[in-house]
C-alpha cells in the first residue's frame, strides 16, 4: 500500500499486556510539577532494565486537579502489579516526596489497589497524620517546606497494553527524526498513552535473541542501514538511510490503536517529499503478544 508516496508495509505491531496506573502530581506552579514528573518518569524507557515504562501523559490546569494547583498526569506501566507497586513507591518516594511543594494523587480510581502514600507516610516518623476526605484516605507528612500530601492508594488497570509501535524509514537521519517528531506530537495529543523513550523515539530497535547466550535481545540488524549490504537479511532498500521507532504504551488496547492511528496520519501527511519513504511496524511473528495492530487497518481511510 502506498499513501502520499509513502509505502505502508503489510505488517503489524505486536504488543503485550501490562499493568498500569496513572498518578496526578501537583505543585505550587507548573515548573515544580514538571520537575517532579520528569524525575519520576526518568530512566523508565523499557521494562527490560528500568523495571517500568513511564511518561508524562499531559499537563493539568488548576481546575482539573484535586487541590486546585497546576499538575501533571503521569502513566507508569510494568509487567506485574507487584513490580509496578515497587516502582511507584520508589519513584514517588525519591522524586515526588523530595520535590518542593508537590502533592500526589491517584489518577485511576478502579482496578487493583496498590500503595501510594501508604508506606511513604512512615517518613513522617510518627508525625504523619491521616485524613479521610470524600471516602479517600490521604496522608499528611511534615516536611521542611510544610507538608507533603499523598493519597494513600492508587489503582492499577490490568487492561494496559505495552509495545505498540511504528517504524519510520527515511532517506536520512534528519528526515527520519522529523517524521518521528511529528508523529510523536500527534500521539501526545491523545489521552491514556505515553511514548516512554527519550522524546518518544527509540533508535535502537531490537530483535529477540543474540549470538551471545546471556543476551535476550540484540540490535535489529535487518533494519540497520549500516548492515544493509552485509547482514544475512536486510529489510532496507538502498534509498533508506535512517530508521526511527516510536513505542507506545496505553491504558487500553483501544488507546494504543488510537495513538498509532494518529501517528500514522501525521507521518503520512508529510508526504514522500519529506524524505519519509516507508512505514513499518515491529513484531515477533505474532508469537509474543496477544495484541496485533495491522498498519493497513489503521491508516487514514481504512475501515475501522
Amino acid at each position, binding site marked *: 500500500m502506498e499513501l502520499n508516496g509513502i509505502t505502508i508495509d503489510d505488517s503489524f505491531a505486536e504488543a503485550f499486556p501490562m499493568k498500569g496506573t496513572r498518578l496526578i502530581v*501537583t505543585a505550587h506552579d507548573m515548573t515544580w510539577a514538571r520537575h517532579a514528573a520528569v524525575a519520576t518518569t526518568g530512566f523508565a524507557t523499557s521494562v527490560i532494565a528500568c523495571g517500568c515504562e513511564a511518561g508524562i501523559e499531559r499537563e493539568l490546569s488548576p481546575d482539573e486537579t*484535586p*487541590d*486546585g*494547583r497546576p499538575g501533571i498526569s503521569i502513566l507508569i506501566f510494568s509487567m506485574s502489579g507487584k513490580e509496578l507497586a515497587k516502582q511507584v513507591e520508589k519513584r514517588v518516594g525519591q522524586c515526588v516526596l523530595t520535590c518542593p511543594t508537590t*502533592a500526589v494523587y491517584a489518577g485511576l480510581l478502579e482496578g487493583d489497589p496498590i500503595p501510594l502514600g501508604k508506606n511513604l507516610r512512615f517518613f513522617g516518623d510518627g*508525625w504523619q*497524620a*491521616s*485524613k*479521610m*476526605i*470524600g471516602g479517600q484516605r*490521604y496522608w*499528611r507528612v511534615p516536611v521542611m517546606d*510544610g*507538608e507533603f*500530601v499523598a493519597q494513600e492508594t492508587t489503582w492499577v488497570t490490568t487492561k494496559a497494553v505495552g509495545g505498540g509501535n511504528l517504524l519510520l524509514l527515511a532517506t536520512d537521519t534528519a528526515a527520519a527524526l522529523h517524521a518521528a517528531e511529528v508523529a510523536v506530537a500527534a500521539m501526545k495529543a491523545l489521552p491514556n498513552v505515553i511514548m516512554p523513550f527519550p522524546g518518544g523515539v527509540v533508535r535502537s530497535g531490537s530483535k529477540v535473541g543474540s549470538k551471545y547466550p546471556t543476551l535476550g535481545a540484540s540490535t535489529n540488524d535487518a533494519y540497520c542501514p549500516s548492515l544493509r549490504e552485509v547482514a544475512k537479511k536486510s529489510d532496507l532498500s538502498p534509498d533508506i538511510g535512517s530508521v526511527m521507532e516510536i513505542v507506545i504504551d496505553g491504558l487500553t488496547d483501544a488507546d494504543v490503536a488510537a495513538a498509532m492511528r494518529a501517528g500514522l496520519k501525521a507521518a503520512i501527511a508529510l508526504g514522500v517529499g519529506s524524505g519519509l519513504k516507508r512505514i513499518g511496524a515491529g513484531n515477533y511473528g505474532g508469537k509474543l503478544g496477544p495484541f496485533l495492530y495491522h498498519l493497513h487497518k489503521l491508516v487514514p481511510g481504512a475501515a475501522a
Partner: protein
Amino acid sequence: MSGWKLTLKAAPRLRVDLRSVSPAAFAEFDGVAVGRHVVHHGNEAVALGDLFAIAPGVDGELRLEGDLSKLDRIGWQLAGGTIRIDGDAGDYLGAGMSAGEIVASGSAGMLAACEMSGGRLEIGGDAGDFAASALPGSMDGMRGGTLLVRGNAGQRFGDRMRRGTALVFGDAGDFVASRMVAGTIAVAGRIGAHPAYGMRRGTLLAAGPAPALPPTFVGNTVDIGVFWQLLSRDLARHGGAFAALPKRRVQRHLGDLAAGGKGELLFVA
C-alpha cells in the same frame, strides 16, 4: 422490596424503643406483619399497629411521620436502606448505623449518631447533647460516615469521635470535639466553651466566628493550603456556610497539648 409509611396516631405516654424497626426487615413484610411487629413502650410490649397508621410507601424506604420525640433508637445499627422522618426524633437517632441514610426534618434528642460508622445522617433541626459521641462506657464515638446537623448541636458534640465527618450548620455547645481521637468536625456558627478539650488527633474547623483559643492550643503558621483545598472542597459540597470555604484562608492551631498535640483547630479568615 417494599417500603412503608408509618404515621404516629398519638404521642405515646412513655418512651418507645424502635431499635427493631428497619427498612430492610420491613421490606419483606406485608401490611399485617408490619402492624403486628412488637416494640416496647416503657416496659410493655405493644404492636406497631397500635402506635402508627400503616400505609405502603416508597420502595426500600421507611417513612415515619408525627412528633416522634419520645421514640428512641430510630435507625439503630442501620445497615442499609433509607429512613425518612417527618418530625422530631427521640434519643439515639442513627446510633451505631453503618450504612444507608436517615433524614429527619425535625430535631433529634440526645446521642444522635453515636458510634455511627458509615452512611449518612441528616438532622434538619437541632441535635441534643452527645451527638456523634460514644455510648456510655465505650472508648470510641462516631467512627465513620457523614452527620449533618442543620440546626444547633448540644454539648459534647463529637465526644471521643474517631473517624468520619460531622457538620453543624448552626451553633455548637460546650466541649465540642472533646477527647476527639480523629475525624473531622466543622461548625458554621458559634462554638461554646472549651472546644477540642483533650483532643488527641483530628480536625475541628470553626467556619464561623473563631472561639477563644484554648490555653492548651498553640498557633502554627505553616502553609497547609494543599490539605485545606482537599478538605474545604469536600465540605463545600454540603453547601450553606461551608460552600465558600475553598476561597477562604485558614489559620491552624495545634493541640490539645495536654493530650499529645496532634490535633488541629482551624479558624478561617
